Structure formats: C-alpha cells, structure tokens
C-alpha cells in the first residue's frame, strides 16, 4: 500500500481507532486481572506472606504447590480441593487456634486428610475453588459444611457400633433408643425393643380413668403443697418415653374413656393369710416397716422417688423402672399386689424381676406404697368425668390410632402401628429441597430442620402428627448428631467396604439357669459376654473369679463390695435351690481362658510370703489408696476385707499380672509386679477373711459337681 494513501485516513477515524484499541486491550486485560484475583490465588499468596512470618518458612514454602491442590480418591468418590486454600492442613507446626484460618493444621484425628479427603466427614462441596460455594448451601449444591459440634455424626456414618471416641454420637443414639423413637420411625442401627410402652390391654384394671386423663395431659408431674410444680417430667427429662400429645379436653375425655374400657381378664385378688393380717393389719408401724423393706431391698436401684433435699425437690434413685413418688394414688391395690408377685404375669416383657416375697414383706411394702407414696391432690384438677358413652369410646379409639399410640403400646386386637412415622434411615443425607420448612423462619439447612422438627414439630409442619418432646440443649445436639449419622446406605463401594458394623451380642441361656436368669433379669444390670446392662459388674468370667460358696452367700444376701455405690443389688430373697443353679452354672461356664483352672489352694502360700505381701500392699504400692480393708482405705476399688473367702488365688494372680485381660476397660492400673511380688500379694490377700471359715450354709446345698 502506497504511503500517501495512509495519509488519506481521516484523523477522526484514526482517533476512534486508537480509542477502540485501548478499550479492546482493557477488556482483554480484565480476564487475567480477574484470574489473578481468584480467591484461591489470593489465599495462596496470603499463605506465602503468612509462611514468611513463621520460624519454619523454608519447609512451609517447600511443601507448597502453586496450583490447585486436589485429593482424589475414586473409591470414595472424593475430589477435594479444600487443601488449595487450607494449605497448612498437614503441617504440624501450624497447629493451634493461634494460627489464622484457612492455614491452620487439622487437629489430630485417627483418619488422615490425605487418605480420606475432607467432605467425607465435613460435607460441603469438595471440587469447588470458591469459598462460598465450598462451604455454604447454594442453588446447585445443598450440603453445606457441617459445624464442628455435629462432626461426630460423620463418624457414625461408617461406625455403626459404639465408638468410645464419639461421646456425643453415643449419647444421641442412646437417647433415640430411650425416647422410643423406634416406635414410629425406622432408624438404622437403633434397636426396636419388643416392648416400648406398656401393653394397655388391661389398663382399665390397673388405673382409674381420672388418672389416665391426668397422665395424658401432663405426665409425670410432681406438685408441692403450695401448688408449684416441682418435678416436671418433661423439663427435667425424667419422663423420656411418654411424650405430650396435643389433645383438647374432648380428646382427653374420649381417649381416657376408651383406655379405661380396656379391661381384659379380671385380676384375682390375693388373700393374705389370717396370721399375717392379724399381726400387721392394725399395727401402726406396718407402713414404716414397709418403707424400711423397700429401702433394704434396694428398689431405688431401678425406681426413683421425689425427695426434698435442702429445700429442693429432687428425684433420687435409678431410671430403669418408672418413678414411684405417687404410685399409690395411681394403681389399684389388687393390681399392685399381683404385679409385685409376678410382673411378667401382667407384662411379659417387663424388666422387673420376680421377687421371692415373704408374705409379711409383701403386705408391708404394699401398705407402704398405698399409704405413703400418695398424693390426695393428684387428680384434683381432673374434671368430673361422667359415664363414658359408646360414642366417646369409639372416638377415643380413633384418637388412639390417629395419634399412633399403637406404635409403642400394644392393645389386644389392634395391629401394631410400627413405622407410623417416616423412615429416618437416610435423613442425614437429605438435601434441603427435600425438606418441608413451611412458614418457619429458621435457616434452610438440614441441621436447623432436624432441631426444629424435634423440638417443635408444628413449626415446620402445622399438620404434624409427631407429639411434643422436650430436650435439653445438650441432648438436642446429641440427637441431631445421631440423626445426621443416618445417611442411608453407603454411597460408594469404598464407603461400603469401610463400614464398621454394629455388634449385636446376645446371651440368652436356656435350661434351669436360663429360667432363673430370666426370673431375676440378671442381664438388666450385669453384662454377660458383651450382652446386658452397665450398672453392675461384668459377670462374663465370674466363675474364674469368685468361689462358689461366696457366690451362693452373696446371692442370698447381697453385700455391697463398693461402698460408694448408690445403686446396689436388690435383695431378691432368692431360694437355696436357685442360688445353687446360678452358682453351678457360673462356676462351670463363666470361665476366663486367661486364668489357670486351679480352683483350690493347692499352691503353697507361706506366712512369710503373706507378711511380705502386706508390706508391698501397704508401703510400696499403697493399694489402700483405692481399696478398703477393715475400716480404712479408699473406695475406688472393691472392699478386700473378705478377699480370702471371695477370690480364687489363680484369679488374683492373673488379675495382678494384667487386669485388663480379664476385664477389658477395668480401671485398676496394670503394674509391673515381679512374679514373687504377685505371689506375695496373693498370699496376703488370701489371709483376709471375715469370719473364721467360709460362710456356713453355702456348702450344705452344693450339688453342682
């Protein structure tokens, strides 16, 4: 092109051309500038600046990678770029709250970030490189980051059994069980017991209609003389199982009419022998003696009573059975006597043992319950309930079914309403769009939904059938954690393989032992091979530990070995024959492989050894800090005053060698005793006997071998 033609381009056009070029360059420059300003790049630059302030700058920078970091675990479906910003995740020198986020190291946990990624536990969106998108709920991504206080819910997704490291999750799972949530909901991993609430087929024979009315309105409420509510079963968490249903006065009238119409077979009145009646009926001391027996038999191990201590009403006693403060105003006397004599006769699945009563004890305790555990004003606020019409009874039955009562309570002729509520096995994985929030103003997240639903079902669903429960804030968090753990079947093959199943031990022996074991419900408090309660010592190896004569004596007259215990073994008044059956079985079957099967005193323990043992006990090892002998010593461990009659020498030796091998988790520390020290301590402990010889009466029935 000739040069003079160039000159022909008008200056205006040239000017416009120049401007548009500048604009063009500016527009093109936006993209690289924007890219430089991307959140993760800013974060990386920030990390470099931060690393320079640390003493180990060199190593921190050497470990840094300038691009996007990604943890990719196809097996778990993990594509996590979180470590792009969370640079210091695996740097031990960046631990502690003084290090600013996002550079802080991950606190120690048993799973390493590189092996597991982040979202498996923390939720959120792994592949995102933007802060908001990774952490919060967005339109395209509905699982926000889980707050740290619920993180144990993620542990529970794989660990279906009890994990000692996750106290909140464990307590939540226990609460789901205790609150009878499995009555209406299917909950993966929470057992649905045979009996949730009591069988109501004969409830009309047990309590009055007025009592039912009151119970449905405000269960388990203790009011003092001034009319102030001192124990509210809901608020204090003492009445976990029975929730409050939203019934109006007509509903209460009809439902109580229906329930009291459930009569079943009449209860046969028990006739006390004339001798007992003659001695006790007119005796003013009878109820007081009954109270003494009530205490001596340790009913309080399972049942609590409201007691005024320092001006405050408190429930004192265990929670295996119901609280009994006003039970005398609740049940009728005929039912009470029949129940005390044979609980399983009325409720086959009751946990209450069948005591072997003497007639006079039965009479005294009955009088105590019906005279002292009462409240004349209990039913004062119940309106006058005229004779129920068939129409009211029918309406009551409809209410019974509408409220899902039959999911926890059995009534003859009415099919169980198991699964009346929705299946919650996959609740923890639900997306926000799957949840119903109604008009409530809570944040649109799964955690907020669960907490609102559990504390106030109507707030998220005005038509909710779910009754009203009350939770303390800690319990609410625990229950939420346990529900978050229920995230349905594992999403990936990797997670399925990693799932740690729940152990479901069972110990249901048959034969004569099984009968006695069932009668006294040994497993409600004691553990046998992993099955049973935690209240009392594990008896899996009792046959290796305790001498037969001692067992028999103990069963007949339980003495506490641990003086600090509030809950003690009840006095069952067990028969000689039953004691023999239990002792024989325990001796033969409940043996530990870690204890040599040497039952006698065959090994020679000399007096010199015992003297040395005493010195070791008192001076070198100072066992008295935890154990009592005679009247002095500590009460962390069992009282050893009768160790010689109680324990087998082979057990003592094995125990001193390694207590945790015999009873996993026992708190007695394992010490580095030498062989001679073990022999000496054993010799000393064997000299500790109360009474000159093994208790009488124990061997006379021995028919075992």
């Amino acid at each position, binding site marked *: 092109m000739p040069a003079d033609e160039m000159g022909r381009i008008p200056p205006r056009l040239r000017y416009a051309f120049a401007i548009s070029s500048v*604009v063009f360059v500016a527009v093109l420059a*936006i993209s690289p500038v924007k890219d430089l300003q991307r959140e993760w790049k800013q974060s990386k630059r920030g990390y470099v600046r931060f690393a320079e302030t640390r003493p180990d700058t060199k190593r921190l920078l050497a470990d840094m990678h300038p691009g996007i970091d990604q943890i990719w675990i196809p097996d778990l479906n993990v594509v996590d770029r979180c470590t792009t910003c969370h640079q210091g995740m695996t740097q*031990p020198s960046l631990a502690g709250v003084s290090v600013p986020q996002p550079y802080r190291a991950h606190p*120690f946990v048993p799973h390493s970030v590189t092996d597991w990624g982040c979202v498996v536990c923390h939720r959120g969106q792994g592949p995102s490189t933007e*802060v908001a998108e990774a952490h919060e709920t967005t339109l395209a991504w509905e699982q926000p980051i889980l707050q*740290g206080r619920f993180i144990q819910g993620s542990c529970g997704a794989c660990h279906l059994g009890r994990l000692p490291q996750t106290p909140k999750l464990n307590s939540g799972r226990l609460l789901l069980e205790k609150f009878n949530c499995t009555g209406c909901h299917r909950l993966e991993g929470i057992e649905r017991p045979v009996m949730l609430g009591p069988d109501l087929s004969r409830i009309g024979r047990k309590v009055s209609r007025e009592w039912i009315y009151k119970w449905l309105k405000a269960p388990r409420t203790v009011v003092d003389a001034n009319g102030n509510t001192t124990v509210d079963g809901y608020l204090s968490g003492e009445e976990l199982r029975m929730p409050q249903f939203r019934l109006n006065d007509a509903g209460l009238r009809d439902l109580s009419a229906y329930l009291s119409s459930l009569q079943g077979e009449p209860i046969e009145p028990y006739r006390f022998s004339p001798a007992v009646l003659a001695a006790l009926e007119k005796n003013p001391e009878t109820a007081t003696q009954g109270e003494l027996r009530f205490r001596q038999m340790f009913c309080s191990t399972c049942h609590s009573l409201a007691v005024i201590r320092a001006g405050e009403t408190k429930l004192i006693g265990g929670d295996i059975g119901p609280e009994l403060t006003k039970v005398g105003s609740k049940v009728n006397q005929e039912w009470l006597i029949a129940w005390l004599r044979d609980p399983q006769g009325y409720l086959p699945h009751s946990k209450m043992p069948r005591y072997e009563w003497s007639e006079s004890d039965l009479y005294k305790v009955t009088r105590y319950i019906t005279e002292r555990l009462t409240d004349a004003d209990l039913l004062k606020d119940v309106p006058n309930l005229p004779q129920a019409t068939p129409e009211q009874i029918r309406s009551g039955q409809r209410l019974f079914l509408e409220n899902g009562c039959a999911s926890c309570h059995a009534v003859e002729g009415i099919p169980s309403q198991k699964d009346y509520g929705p299946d919650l096995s996959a609740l923890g994985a639900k997306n926000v769009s799957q949840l119903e929030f109604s008009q409530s103003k809570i944040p649109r997240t799964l955690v907020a939904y669960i907490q609102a639903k559990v504390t106030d079902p109507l707030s998220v669903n005005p038509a909710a059938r779910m009754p009203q429960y009350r939770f303390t804030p800690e319990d609410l968090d625990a229950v939420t954690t346990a529900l978050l753990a229920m995230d349905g079947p594992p999403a990936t093959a990797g997670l399925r393989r990693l799932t740690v199943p729940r152990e479901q031990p069972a110990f249901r022996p048959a034969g004569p032992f099984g009968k006695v074991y069932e009668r006294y419900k040994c497993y409600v408090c004691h553990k046998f091979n992993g099955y049973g309660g935690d209240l009392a010592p594990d008896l899996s190896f009792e046959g290796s530990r305790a001498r037969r004569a001692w067992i028999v004596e103990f069963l007949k007259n339980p003495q506490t070995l641990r003086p600090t*215990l509030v809950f003690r073994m009840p006095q069952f008044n067990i028969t000689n024959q039953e004691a023999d059956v239990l002792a024989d079985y325990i001796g033969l079957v409940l043996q530990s492989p870690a204890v040599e099967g040497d039952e006698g005193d065959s090994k020679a323990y000399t007096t010199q050894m015992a003297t040395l043992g005493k010195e070791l006990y008192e001076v070198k090892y100072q066992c008295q800090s935890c154990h009592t002998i005679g009247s002095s010593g*500590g009460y962390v461990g069992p009282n050893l005053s009768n160790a010689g009659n109680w324990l087998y020498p082979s057990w003592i030796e094995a125990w001193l060698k390694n207590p945790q091998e015999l009873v996993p988790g026992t*708190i007695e520390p394992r010490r580095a005793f030498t062989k001679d020290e073990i022999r000496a301590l054993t010799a000393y402990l064997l000299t500790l006997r109360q009474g000159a010889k093994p208790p009488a009466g124990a061997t006379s029935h021995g028919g075992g071998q």
Partner: protein
Amino acid sequence: MSRPVTVVVILILMAGAAACRKQPSAPQDPLAQAYDVEADWNDPQRVIPLGYREAQGKRVFYTQCVWCHADSTPAGPSNRSNVTPAPPLMNDGATLNQESDATLKNMIALGGSALGKSAMMPPYGRTLSEEEITDLIAYIRAIAQPPYQPVARPQSGSAGK
C-alpha cells in the same frame, strides 16, 4: 467521543468490582466448632470448647482419674479425702501449670513413687497408651484454672506433633 471513554471507565470499574468481591465471613464461634465441651469446674456457666484430643483426654479422665482428682464423681462421693497427701484437683492450674508436659507424662506413666512423690498415685504407663496420656494432658491443659499458658510460645506448636 465521550461514549467510548464511558465504556472504558465502566469496564474498569466492573473489573475492579469483580476483583474486590468481599469474602463471606464464616462464623467462628468456638463452641459451634468444638468436638466436645466441658463446663468450667469453678463456673458451670462457662463452657470450655474441647478439640478431638482434649475430648479423648476427657474420656480417660472420667474413667480413670476422676475418682481421686475431683471432688465429685459420676458415682457421687470422691475418694480424694481418703488419699494423703490430697491429690491436686485436675483443674488446679496454680499447681499443674507449673509442671511441663514431660513431667506430667512421667507422673502419669510411672506413678508417684518413681518421681519421689506419693506412692498413692499408681503408674498408668502399662494401662494407658502413650496417645491416651498425651490426650489426657491436653485435657488437663484445657480445663486448667487459671488458664494454662505454654511457657515458650514458639515451641508450643510443635509440641503437639
């Protein structure tokens, strides 16, 4: 002529706005992020957040130590009064903050007699794992009253290695 300039200005402003977008501030409530919590022994209204380590230490404490190192226990009364000299309360910062992590570790693992102190403190080195003892010390530090301040600040980070 003024229009292109306006366009340029607008574009620059937009680019600037995009670059300066505010980062969302994540709520940093320590209790909301805590793995577990423990109420201050002296002031039950004050809740102390615990991390994973401290939470495991808490479990060890309430299984093994609470019987003699607290004035009330899950079972009710404490054994502390039966032991002479009386063991320190586990939140007694005035006493325990003086001891280094290593001393506490030896005390727990080897027992009192090995350190020339009361033989009433048994050794737990064969009962608790090393990790459990580390966790326990972390818990003791967390509940200490007055609060525990690591002596040399820079080393505190690597101590948790």
